[in-house]
């Protein structure tokens, strides 16, 4: 052992060269505990008062189950639509130069920044039978407000940035030469996109769509104004939680919330694991 060791590392060599590991990790963990883990513990604390049978009775109640299918169905439609259009938007923002590109890019973040209730009210007035869009669509037999289409629309509105913002950087990283290489090898535009570009974007696209889906599962403010909230028809799970809370049934609210939480966590975890495998292959792992 060196006798000339520096004062802060007496008797042993410092293991890390980058400074600040202890402090930054400590602060991070504290923050996560306060903001993320503590509320979640609270949630499970509420559940402690319920027996398993009571828990099951609450989460399998007919009206609640109907809300699951409305929420999941609308979220799935919203996520798929967002997957397609988010990819398109990201593509346009990365690959082409046009006037107003910066503005469009900034607009992408609007759903993040806008209070969701504002979005909900705007959408509801726009698509109600005497709103601008509603007046045009209703004669065609398409009713948006107060149906699940409206719910999906509100979900799509609030979650589109997830797709755009996850796909965009990956697309920026994909050199144009890869595209050009496919063309010099005789591929037509469709084939080049399907065989060369899409496989690259696939992990980001799935992640973005998954995030959009999970976000839609929990969306409340933007939806309740446009959903109509008819029992068994257009009630979303978040509303069921809200209703329970209004009845001061905290345990019931927590029980339903825990279902949403578990589904979201499971989905996020699955996406992460799958994506990790894919990326390992691109970076030279075993695949």
């Amino acid at each position: 052992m060196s006798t000339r060791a520096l004062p802060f590392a007496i008797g042993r060599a410092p293991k890390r060269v980058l400074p600040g590991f202890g402090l930054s990790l400590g602060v991070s963990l504290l923050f996560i505990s306060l903001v993320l883990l503590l509320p979640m513990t609270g949630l499970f604390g509420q559940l402690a008062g319920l027996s398993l049978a009571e828990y099951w009775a609450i989460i399998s109640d007919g009206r609640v189950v109907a809300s699951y299918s409305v929420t999941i169905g609308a979220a799935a439609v919203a996520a798929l639509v967002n997957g397609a259009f988010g990819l398109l938007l990201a593509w346009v923002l990365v690959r082409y130069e046009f006037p107003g590109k910066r503005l469009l890019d900034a607009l992408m973040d609007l759903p993040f920044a806008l209070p969701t209730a504002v979005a909900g009210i705007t959408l509801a007035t726009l698509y109600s039978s005497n709103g601008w869009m509603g007046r045009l669509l209703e004669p065609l037999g398409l009713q948006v407000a107060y149906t699940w289409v409206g719910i999906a629309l509100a979900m799509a509105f609030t979650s589109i940035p997830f797709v755009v913002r996850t796909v965009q950087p990956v697309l920026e990283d994909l050199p144009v030469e890869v595209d050009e290489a496919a063309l010099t090898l005789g591929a037509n535009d469709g084939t080049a996109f399907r065989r060369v570009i899409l496989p690259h974007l696939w992990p980001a696209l799935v992640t973005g769509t998954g995030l959009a889906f999970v976000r839609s599962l929990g969306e409340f403010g933007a939806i309740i104004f446009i959903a109509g909230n008819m029992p068994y028809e257009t009630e979303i799970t978040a509303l069921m939680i809200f209703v329970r809370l209004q009845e001061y049934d905290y345990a019931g609210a927590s029980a339903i919330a825990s279902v949403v939480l578990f589904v979201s966590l499971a989905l996020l975890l699955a996406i992460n694991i799958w994506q990790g495998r894919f990326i390992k292959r691109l970076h030279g792992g075993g695949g």
Partner: protein
Amino acid sequence: MSIRLHNIGKHFDAGRQRTRALEPVNLDIHDGELIGLLGPSGSGKTTLLRIIAGLECADSDSGARILFGDRDVTNLHVRDRRIGFVFQHYALFRHMTVFDNVAFGLTVMPRKHRPTTGEIRARVHRLLEMVKLEPLANRYPAQLSGGQQQRVSLARALALRPDVLLLDEPFGALDAKVRQDLRLWLRHLHDELGFTSIFVTHDQEEALELSDRVAVMSNGRIEQIDTPDAVYKAPANRFVFEFLGDVNHLEGEVRDGVLTCGEAHLSVDLPDGPEELLLRPHEVRLVETPTPEARLPMTVTAISPVGAEVRVELAADWLGEPWLATVRHADYERLDLRRGQRLFAVPRRWHRFPAGQPERTVMATADAA
């Protein structure tokens, strides 16, 4: 297949400004030739290559035409031009194995022209054998070294048996040793398969070693196109001369056949007036005592005894930039060169490119060596 370029020019519109990337270029390339486009960055060499490939369009107003043999490809899409293109940064498909990368061109052919799976397999394995990468067929690009990746990209470009192979700084991203190997290997491959190829480089040595003919470009113009030997020995202008190797400058005032510059003087057979002479490092001889014709006192500032010759850096008060001289190892030992030593330089030959006159003049001084 021969390539003929007629009036290929290119503008870029940046806002309200129009910048010329390429002056209208005419170029005839023979069947089976290996042509190097050599120039500094921004000289338009890559733009020219990409126009030939069809990845960029030439200005249409100047009557641009590109012919591959008898085939007019001017308005043909890149995918129909039957070219192979090798990119500087390989541009491999990273989610595909080496095999799938090379097979890509064959698998995207229209169904009725597409070879059977067995034929594709056989052809890809032949190509991989040729680029010596057979054992790595199932690896992903990220698992290969730069040199290996560039060989994959070459095999991929050759899979469709293109008439023309275009390479954009193919060795630019590789380290010196790999570069040297790949260079020789490409030359062999070219001679063996007989395709016509054009490659872009900013490395003079690479261009001179590899090409049948070199086109030296600057500012969107082809300054000279000739064999490496002719380009080096008879540069068309000062730019070509300076770009192809190290150059020493000697500036001074000529009076009565003697060029003077501070304490230095050199007998020259030139009219009176300011002059600038250019010398290659191997055209400088170092001696301990000045000759009657030349008295150019110098101080040795650095010595690099690596390679076939010793490179000596020389400085003097009367010189703007230091000189570089290459001397044989025997002379190096005889002169017992040390840093800080004072010597005299004697030009074996010198060159001048007077402004406004296209011809250069090369004069040999009385050379005692």
